[in-house]
């Protein structure tokens, strides 16, 4: 297992997961036409990503269907119980930064929702709360993104 394999495997899982999620979304909301169509379109992107990942894996002599090295499987999950098995502290850090980033992303979306309901219900206090907090959430996301960008070349290339 090296950094490239780890990234390919994790992305393969993630894109397959997202393909499924988007396809389900499209399927469930046939009556929501925009959702239905756009989600289906976006699902094909992820499908294509999986195909390309597979081709790339083949060029690296990797079969993404063989089970992953158990030590590294923890990297792809958000389940904390398996973390102790991650063999590299740098990887653990990348994984944690990713989870923080995703959590911040959820918050960001929720701030967006709050701001929208505040506007719809003419609640200016609530809107100003969201206007104050949401930019900070975006700064949190930028920070995790910057840290992942800066650290991952060394951590993954050294695996």
């Amino acid at each position: 297992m090296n950094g490239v394999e780890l990234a390919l495997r994790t992305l393969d899982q993630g894109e397959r997961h997202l393909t499924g999620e988007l396809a389900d979304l499209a399927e469930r909301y046939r009556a929501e036409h925009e959702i239905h169509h756009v989600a289906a379109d976006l699902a094909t992107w992820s499908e294509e990503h999986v195909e390309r990942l597979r081709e790339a894996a083949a060029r690296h002599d990797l079969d993404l269907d063989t089970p992953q090295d158990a030590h590294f499987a923890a990297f792809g999950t958000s389940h904390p119980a398996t973390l102790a098995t991650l063999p590299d502290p740098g990887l653990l850090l990348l994984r944690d930064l990713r989870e923080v980033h995703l959590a911040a992303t959820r918050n960001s979306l929720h701030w967006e929702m709050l701001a929208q309901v505040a506007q719809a219900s003419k609640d200016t206090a609530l809107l100003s709360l969201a206007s104050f907090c949401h930019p900070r959430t975006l700064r949190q996301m930028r920070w995790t993104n910057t840290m992942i960008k800066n650290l991952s070349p060394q951590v993954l290339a050294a695996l």
Partner: protein
Amino acid sequence: MERSVDRIRDPWGGRVPHGRHQPWPARVDTYLTEGLRPEQVQKWVQAASILHSDGDAMDIAVVDGRMVGVRGRATDRVNRGRLGPKDLFGWQANASPDRLTRPLVREDGRLVESDWETAMSRVVSCSRSLLDERGPGAIGFYTSGQLFLEEYYTLAVLARAGIGTNHLDGNTRLCTATAAEALKETFGSDGQPGCYDDIDHADVIALFGHNIAETQPVQWMRVLDRLEGSDPPRLLCVDPRPTPVARKATVHLAPRIGTNVALLNALLHVIIRTGRVDHDYVRRHTVGYEELAAQVQDCTPEWAARICDVPASRIVEAAELLGGAERLLSTVLQGVYQSHQATAAAVQVNNLHLLRGMLGRPGAGVLQMNGQPTAQNTRECGADGDLPGFRNWQNDAHVEDLAQIWNVEPAVIPHYAPPTHALQMFRYAEQGSIRMLWVSGTNPAVSLPELSRIRTILAQERLFLVVQDLFLTETAQYADVVLPAATWGEKTGTFTNADRTVHLSDKAVEPPGEARPDLDIFLDYARRMDFRDQDGEPLITWRDPVSAFEAWKRCSAGRPCDYTGLTYEMLREGTGIQWPVGRQAPRGTPRLYTEGISWAHPDMCEAYGKDLVTGAADGEDDYRAHNPEGKAMLKPAAYTPAHETPRETYPFQLTTGRTLYHFHTRTKTGRSPQLNAAAPEVWVEMSADDATRLDLAEGDVVEVTTPRGALRGQLRITGLRPGVIFVPFHYGYWDTPSGTGPDASTPGRAANETTITDWDPASKQPLFKTAAAAVTRVARGHGQPSPAPTTTASAPTGRRLPATTGGPTARVTQVPDPAWDRQEEHR
């Protein structure tokens, strides 16, 4: 003015008063080995000072192939003949008997004398096998602020395009990274806006965390001369210590450590509230005014007074001084750069000048200072976490441009992430992903924070450590290969001071033994590694200083630090010259931004900026949207409390710093008799209030403890801010029985035993001035005073102590040079 003066006792020498808007008259300082008369000097060889960032031009006196003294150059724009104590006496270290004269290699755990062939073969073989097995990310280079331009540029090319590693940084990370970052944040690119001549023209000079009297003593002489002339300037000093600057200041603020942003926000608040903003300038040349005004709207002096523990009325007085200035010069140094919220605070000083339109005119300028003589070159050559020529690693066109100059594929030059900063390199070495570290001209085993950790990293078996230095430093003792380097006076090259003045420093004498210029060592490595360009030709085509300089000129073309108009011949004509020097400015450029902001356009800027609190990088799109026309950027920052604050077990705030008589880890100044005697041993400063409360007296041996470690020194009681202790950072272990660190024979002596590993998120500069510490007595001093100098910020309060003196061997002649002054009048 006396003809001869003890320059240890009187570090700044005699006064030659000068009035406002007058050229600074010359005063030529000469120091020759005792008994030698000037007419016995066989030749004078031109150089500039290498023991601070001022760039004092001087000539080295030579007799029979030996250095025998120095003399200031009256014709030079920087110092007009004056020299500081370190310039006058520091050169003697070159001839120390313990200079490294042969390469050393580690055999059976011990360093043994060897030869260049063996030593370089080991370095090359380690490099090759790491490249094969682990790739370029396994190799890191940690360099200095004291090599020459030609050397940094060569190192940058071989590291970034030869090895292809992103891991190249300088110890300038500890001294000047925040200056560079603050300039990038505000002006889009590095480049000192102001000029030392601004001292001659300003009516208010504000020094933020800058003890200029000890860090750039020659410019302090210029301030002192103005203070004694007609229409003297008024000074604002922000410093927790009673520095010589504080003693001359109209307003001295000694805020609680770590609160610079709160103080500066309050100053900006008053400037805006009292209508001191030059709205026309702000409209024409800046973006971001609304955000800044909103940020400081609630930052009243009363609010800041509670945070900074400074009376609100004094903050108002300071703001009135700044707001009423007709020509304002501000300077910033380590009290800001090495403290909490470093970049955020340094940027607020830039904001002050933008709000007041105080840029680009005589007397109206900002000097974001450096500590080291050649730090500016580390920055511009790309050896300090930036790409050469202030190119933007996020801008593909800039990388392509660089790739063309080097004739390599752009992908060869790592630009997928910012160049790795020093503290991160040590972290990678700690984790084992960096396996070879080449340290040139710096001593991390004393100068980095939290030394027990640094020693553990350097001592790792798996890390191949190469150290290139003059002496067997604390760091060199951990090395696998030690390369003996030639130094200033033994090699030729250029370097650039804190106000962009480029000087040429010539070889005066031969280096000792087999020691070689750093340039030759890097060139030898490049040759042995056989680095090639994309056509299979040698990557590095130059072979000596002048051809390296020519190569650098091509790299600097079209960039803010344009050297294309400079030649070694021009630099031999009597004075240093300020870059940019090119077709537009054939004789150099005193001030940047005289006609608006020149380098902030999205296509030209060195960086797209960062979040000042988190360090998160902005992207090109953000930058274009915010600043499409390339104006100066007013960036606000909210105050956040320091990360380590005093508590019951560690009730003091610990700050570290320099003294006038020493440089860095004393490798040179500790070997210069006059300088060493002036400050021979570490000490600890404390206020009289705290000393009384703890029943401590002058000279008591105390232990300073933090969660990281401890050191011992004799107590000096000064007018320091209560609650703060100060320890000079110069003292390590090379001249103790242990050699490298504390042990049973040697108690802790280095300030960095105690400092915290924490850095500014934007500039990545370590914070040496923000730790919590405890102080306990180890032994009574019994009337034996502390070894701290009495002539500086360490001056004692209360009890009169014997003054620091140098005696007969420290007497320096000083002569006003009337010939030069007449020449100036006719210009």
